[in-house]
């Protein structure tokens, strides 16, 4: 049901984005476009530049070259909190949560920016229910299992009510059941929100993906539908460590 993207203004648009660390180029001349309410999966071997690209999109890193636009706003090199306020939320690869606070407090802090107390409480209750975290709402996040901490982090991201959600390896360290629930959740979120998901788990990608962008050595190798990408021999080669020369 996606309308032809060419005629629509994209939600996020990266042009010629390059990130160098000393002599290493982690992201090289990447052009990337995501439409409104689109779900995109990013795959690629370790060190392909996916997480670095996420850090650039969220302002944690300033790109060496290139521009990024969020709708009409140029966000290149903006501070992370400024980009977050424009409606970008991210679940990072290594869970970034408030370990010393309870689950409830984690979500509350995320929900409460510039909102009335009543509205904040409503968001917190709704989010905790949606992610089935109500039963552990009073527990300290630092004492939870890895999979639960991931869910808490997803809850904080949802509670800030972003328009674009970036998920870096949301299924990592989760049990089989949790992976299925995560996939269902992502599909549900995607009804109203745009998402970019970085993941290594191919069965998981098949569960959620429509369009897939493959990163390799800091560049975009291929971008296509999930069936074509997973059937592409080049993609298999880079995952097996054979580099297309």
């Amino acid at each position, binding site marked *: 049901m996606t309308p032809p993207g060419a005629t629509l203004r994209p939600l996020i648009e990266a042009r010629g984005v390059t990130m160098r660390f000393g002599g290493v180029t982690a992201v090289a001349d990447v052009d990337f476009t995501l439409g409104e309410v689109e779900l995109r999966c990013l795959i690629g071997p370790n060190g392909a530049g996916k997480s670095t690209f996420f850090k650039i999109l969220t302002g944690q890193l300033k790109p060496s070259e290139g521009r990024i636009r969020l709708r009409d706003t140029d966000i290149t090199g903006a501070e992370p909190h400024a980009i977050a306020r424009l409606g970008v939320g991210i679940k990072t690869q290594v869970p970034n949560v408030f370990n010393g606070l309870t689950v409830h407090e984690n979500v509350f*802090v995320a929900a409460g920016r510039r909102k009335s107390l009543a509205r904040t409480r409503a968001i917190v209750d709704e989010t905790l229910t949606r992610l089935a975290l109500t*039963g*552990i709402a009073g527990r300290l996040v630092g004492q939870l299992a890895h999979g639960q901490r991931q869910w808490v982090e997803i809850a*904080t*991201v949802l509670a800030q009510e972003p328009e674009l959600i970036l998920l870096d390896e949301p299924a990592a360290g989760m049990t089989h059941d949790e992976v299925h629930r995560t996939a269902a959740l992502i599909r549900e979120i995607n009804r109203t929100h745009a998402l970019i998901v970085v993941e290594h788990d191919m069965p998981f990608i098949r569960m959620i993906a429509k369009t897939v962008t493959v990163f390799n050595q800091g560049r975009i190798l291929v971008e296509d539908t999930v069936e074509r990408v997973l059937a592409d021999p080049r993609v298999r080669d880079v995952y097996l460590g054979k580099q297309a020369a």
Partner: protein
Amino acid sequence: MNPALPARRASALGFAATLAIGLAILFGAPHVLDTFGLVQCTGFAALAMFGLSQGFVWGFAGVMSFGQAAFLGLGGYAYAVAVINMGDSSIPVLLSILVPMAFAGLLGYFMFYGRISDAYIGVITLTVSVILFQLVNATSGSQYRIGAAELGGFNGIPAIPALNAPFHPDEPLDIDGIWYAAMGALILVYGILRAVLAARLGRVIVAIRENEIRAQLIGYDPRLYKLIAFMLAAGVAGLAGCLYANWGGFISPTVFALPMSAQVIIYVLVGGLGTLVGPMLGAVLIQALIIAAGSQTVVDSNLGLGLVLVGFVLLVPQGLLPVARSAALRLVARVRTPRPGKAADTFATERAR
């Protein structure tokens, strides 16, 4: 039902208990203690306020200020200079809060917005307090004066007019009155800091201490919140300086000196980092120990104090209050019939699945 409720209820109970004990001390002490004891307790209240300042900025905002004495000294000197010039103590008290806050605003702006790392914030605050010490120490001679107030260099400023009834300079407070002012201010500031921590501002300050990156990624600017916390703590330290100057009627550059900054860190460590009551208890305990150590001749007093501190760090690293709290909770749990909590139950079934 809000599952965070039991914890919040316990915390509210602790707050009410602290308030009750504080008020009991406030109104009880003048009846129980002699003049000497009351004056000593007024000094304790001033230093407890100083401990509160360090406990807030370090324990809750996670900002390791190693030079909190800079704000104590600025507050004390601001009060002394202003009250000598004005005669009425009402505005000088406000200045003793606002001058350190403004200074902290300037210093904090460059530190936090300049992205100075935590370790260097310790170094910078320490250095600033030492610079202020040297600066004020070097103001000997009648040419160093602000209006009618001579700074006096290492001799300090003697005979500082005491607090008076607000806007009635002809009604100076007596010893009882200064006690009520000092202890009352301590209870008030404690209440204000509790309110700040319960409000959204405080929650964000603590969240930033827990994970600065996450706080940024949900849209909060950590630099601003750290600056606010740093300025608040500076204001509290400044008021402590004002009370300290009132207590002795005298202030000298030693308020800026290294031992002052080190001492307040010890108050927090002994009392309990991450609590507000702990640093106040720590201040009273350490000051009482210092006085006791000074009045005996068996052991060198500094050596004895050092041993006590090393013992604390090795044996009670969390500090007194958290240890006492968890002991009390264990006692309560043993008295009550053990029943599994609802939260733990759900968690267990979730794991078993």
